[in-house]
């Protein structure tokens, strides 16, 4: 069977174990005084409890162990720890604060409503909590999972060190595998728990492993029983063909479990409280324990096998329930206890009340899951993903075909060897909206190694948005932003860039020198503070508090912060605003020096002369669109177009078709001709029209050119 099918089946059986727990807790008031002794007691529900109790947590921990190895293999140790912290530790800690008071509240309320007056009276003088007592409530299973994860990581680290060649683990695989593959595996697996509980009267009193829900001190029976299951799960993931054995033997295992169950419930001498001639009283507990422990394992294998056999296909309903089950189990106990307590004194038969409790609980849990958990961050934390409630309508703008990006394996050396062809930063059809405003409407732009790219544009053109996408300050709505071949959110990518942003107030009580040292500490091989000061000509500012610097001086310190990490790529957002002429010259010469040493620069500016002095290429943005991209000369030709105005009788359509004429318009009095080559056009005009008058030639300024380009773009 495929790994996908296995996953479906195991997910289903884990969900089944969790949901069976809800049923189990709902039976309790009908034969136990927990949370309240119901007026209608039921031997049938006691039997339901006894049927579920042996296997549900063992099965759960077995699958948890298997999935633990799956996650570690997929994400590595760090990824595993992060994932478990989010999905297990956070629900444990936060869930406890919310669920424990509610559960205990329902429990106390229930006991006071108990039909048995002796119990109600006992609550008035509650027993003193023993030392180390802690009400973990039903969240104990998360606590033990955390313990097992910690042990697992420790053992794994020890193995990696001591058994690097894998001899021991290979031997374990070889020896243990045949034992586990046989029908008698439960005899081996039951040993640890039997050693702990075989001679302990509690197994009879409590029926199975004492639930470790009232102390933070790890309890030996739970460690032995559930720990074996967890370890087995881990082992099974190494030997996945074991699952095939279980699948084949599902019925056999269940039959054996059933027979054992019948035996310890009905055979005199085995059944608690009975005696028989064939067994002495002191051994009967031990025999009961043996049967019970074997039942745990046969039932668990039988159920997992049945799931592999019958639930391997993908089913939307099972998938949904599997996702919902974690939330449902976490949240169910206060609801179940509250309902049980509320119904305890109602004179109805248990056959009505019990289904009612399940129906109400199930409805509340499913509805809350569907609306509060599945589509929100709670679902993302619990299940590792979030399902949007409804698919969003597709964007009105037609989506451009995404240019395929070169695949990137992320190693620094590979990246270096591709330096020549791989852009340092790129935007691929990047789109970003803020509400209804389109900040970027599908921009493709890359920064090549060793170049200075100037990004120009009027206010609100999208320059800062483009930079923010590259820096990972914003995420594109559509399309991609890449930095050094990686996601901009990757800190490794950011280690190769330096940044100078607009409108940053540096910490006023730090000195420039301290701030440079701090920023340099983020980089693997930065310049020293002295080198940085020297390079940027800021020695005189070094010992001043940032709060005492002038606007221009702050820009200079920010520039020093940007270069101190020895970046391959610098982002400079309006670097020279507020600088005096000399400081600007110094900054320009530093930039040239950096480029000569192999640094690339992305520069946004309002000053065309700055772009002209420094840039290899210029990108012009307007209204979120890239409207011009080329070398400085190419863009200068756009900006250096001239407007010729004259009074002429020539037909405007004819003039428009002349070589070198970009556009021509005319009203009754005047003709306007736009051209980059005014001299040639004027010569031809004068030759063609002897009566030409009022000739005027005007140089288009930057603002005018931008206005023109923007108008064309609109």
């Amino acid at each position: 069977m495929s790994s996908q099918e296995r996953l479906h089946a195991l997910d289903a059986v884990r969900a089944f174990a969790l949901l069976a727990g809800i049923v189990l807790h709902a039976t309790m008031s009908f034969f136990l005084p927990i949370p309240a002794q119901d007026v209608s007691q039921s031997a049938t529900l006691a039997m339901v409890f006894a049927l579920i109790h042996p296997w549900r947590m063992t099965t759960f921990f077995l699958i948890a162990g298997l999935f633990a190895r799956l996650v570690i293999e997929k994400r590595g140790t760090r990824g595993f720890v992060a994932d478990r912290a989010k999905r297990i530790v956070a629900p444990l800690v936060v869930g406890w604060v919310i669920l424990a008071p509610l559960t205990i509240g329902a429990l106390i309320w229930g006991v006071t409503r108990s039909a048995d007056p002796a119990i109600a009276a006992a609550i008035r003088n509650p027993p003193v909590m023993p030392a180390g007592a802690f009400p973990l409530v039903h969240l104990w299973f998360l606590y033990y999972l955390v313990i097992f994860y910690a042990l697992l990581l420790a053992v794994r680290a020890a193995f990696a060190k001591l058994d690097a060649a894998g001899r021991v683990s290979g031997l374990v695989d070889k020896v243990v595998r045949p034992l586990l593959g046989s029908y008698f595996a439960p005899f081996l697996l039951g040993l640890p728990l039997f050693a702990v509980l075989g001679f302990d009267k509690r197994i009879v009193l409590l029926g199975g492993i004492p639930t470790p829900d009232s102390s933070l001190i790890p309890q030996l029976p739970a460690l032995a029983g559930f720990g074996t299951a967890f370890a087995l799960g881990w082992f099974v993931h190494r030997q996945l063909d074991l699952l095939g054995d279980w699948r084949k033997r599902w019925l056999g295992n269940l039959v054996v479990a059933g027979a054992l169950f019948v035996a310890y419930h009905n055979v005199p001498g085995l059944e608690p409280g009975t005696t028989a001639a064939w067994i002495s009283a002191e051994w009967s507990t031990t025999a009961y324990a043996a049967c019970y422990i074997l039942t745990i394992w046969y039932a668990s294998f039988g159920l997992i096998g049945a799931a592999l056999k019958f639930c391997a296909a993908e089913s939307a309903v099972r998938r949904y329930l599997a996702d919902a089950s974690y939330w449902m189990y976490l949240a169910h106990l206060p609801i179940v206890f509250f309902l049980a307590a509320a119904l305890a004194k109602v004179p109805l038969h248990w056959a009505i009340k019990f289904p009612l409790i399940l129906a109400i609980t199930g409805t509340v849990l499913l509805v809350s899951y569907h609306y509060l958990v599945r589509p929100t961050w709670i679902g993302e934390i619990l299940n590792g993903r979030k399902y949007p409630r409804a698919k969003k309508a597709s964007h009105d703008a037609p989506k451009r075909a995404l240019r395929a990006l070169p695949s990137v394996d992320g190693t620094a050396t590979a990246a270096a060897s591709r330096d020549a062809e791989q852009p340092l930063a790129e935007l691929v059809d990047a789109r970003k909206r803020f509400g209804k405003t389109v900040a970027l409407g599908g921009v493709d732009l890359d920064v090549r190694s060793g170049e200075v790219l100037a990004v120009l544009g009027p206010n609100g053109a999208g320059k800062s948005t483009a930079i923010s996408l590259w820096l990972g300050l914003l995420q594109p709505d559509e399309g991609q932003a890449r930095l050094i071949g990686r996601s901009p959110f990757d800190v490794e990518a950011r280690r190769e860039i330096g940044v100078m942003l607009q409108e940053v107030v540096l910490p006023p009580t730090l000195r420039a020198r301290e701030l440079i040292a701090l920023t340099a500490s983020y980089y693997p091989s930065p310049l020293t503070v002295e080198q940085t000061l020297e390079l940027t000509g800021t020695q005189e500012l070094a010992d001043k508090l940032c709060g005492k610097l002038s606007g221009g001086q702050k820009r200079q310190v920010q520039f020093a912060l940007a270069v101190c990490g020895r970046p391959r790529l610098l982002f400079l957002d309006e670097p020279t605003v507020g600088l005096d002429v000399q400081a600007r010259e110094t900054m320009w010469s530093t930039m040239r020096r950096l480029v000569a040493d192999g640094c690339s620069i992305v520069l946004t500016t309002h000053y065309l002369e700055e772009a002209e002095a420094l840039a290899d290429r210029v990108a012009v943005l307007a209204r979120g669109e890239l409207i011009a991209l080329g070398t400085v000369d190419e863009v200068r030709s756009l900006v250096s177009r001239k407007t010729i105005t004259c009074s002429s009788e020539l037909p405007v359509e004819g003039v428009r078709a002349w070589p070198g004429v970009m556009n021509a318009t005319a009203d009754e009095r005047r003709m306007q001709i736009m051209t980059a080559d005014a001299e040639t056009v004027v010569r031809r005009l004068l030759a063609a029209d002897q009566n030409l008058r009022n000739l005027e030639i005007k140089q288009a300024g930057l603002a005018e050119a931008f206005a023109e380009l923007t108008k064309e773009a609109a």
Partner: protein
Amino acid sequence: MNATIATHLVFRAAGPMPLGRIVRAYLEAAWCEFIATLRAPAFTFPFLGMPVALYLLFAVVMAGAAPDDPDVVANPQLATYLMSGWCAMAVMGPGIFGFGIGLAMERDQGLLKLKRALPLPAGAALFAKMAMAMLFAALAAGSVVIAALAAGKVIIGFGSLLILLGVMILGSLPFCAIGLLIGAYSSSGASPAIANLVYLPGMWLSGMFFPLPESLRPWAVIWPAFHLNQTALGAAGVEEFSFVNPTLTAAVLVAITVLCTGVALRRLARVG
């Protein structure tokens, strides 16, 4: 340009960050946070000076003026309770305000944006602020303890005193988390008000300095300061004033820390 740096300036792929440098980045960030805060007297005075001043006024001068008060006579551990209460107050401030206002201001001033664009190791900024808050908490609570020693108000053993102080210093973490949450969600204009809304009622209504009216008593459990005070008193073995199992109150503090930090980090990672 000077020749001394010419040989060093090669801009190339940087390669991985050695562990030593990552550790150094954490320490450097914590150091800068600390000295930047120390140079801001508007922050240092209220949080370093106020708790010890108030402790001296209420617990030493005023309580000393009424040595025959039946309450004082009946509860010899009252002096410890007061010391513990002012210690709790001392450790609350740096966390709530340091994170709450500091973070909101950094956002408004664009510094947070710069930090997000820079390659700070994961958690370095958070660690720096946390270390700063704990250090200030230690200084502030330590001054209360020293004042208590000087005034002869310490009647518990030295070991218990150290445990109490240790719990208090660690106990600044949940308040850091609360501050972080405030800072993550509010602007620099709103954050002082919100921080005060958490700080002042939390301080007065958790019954740390004087007996609460009967009607307010059960509600003390909603304030984190109550849980911190109870954890410290319970751990130090001051049984007369330990009303709740200290493991439980400690668990509440851990949960508050995890919850607030989780929600805040989520917001910071997405919105900044």
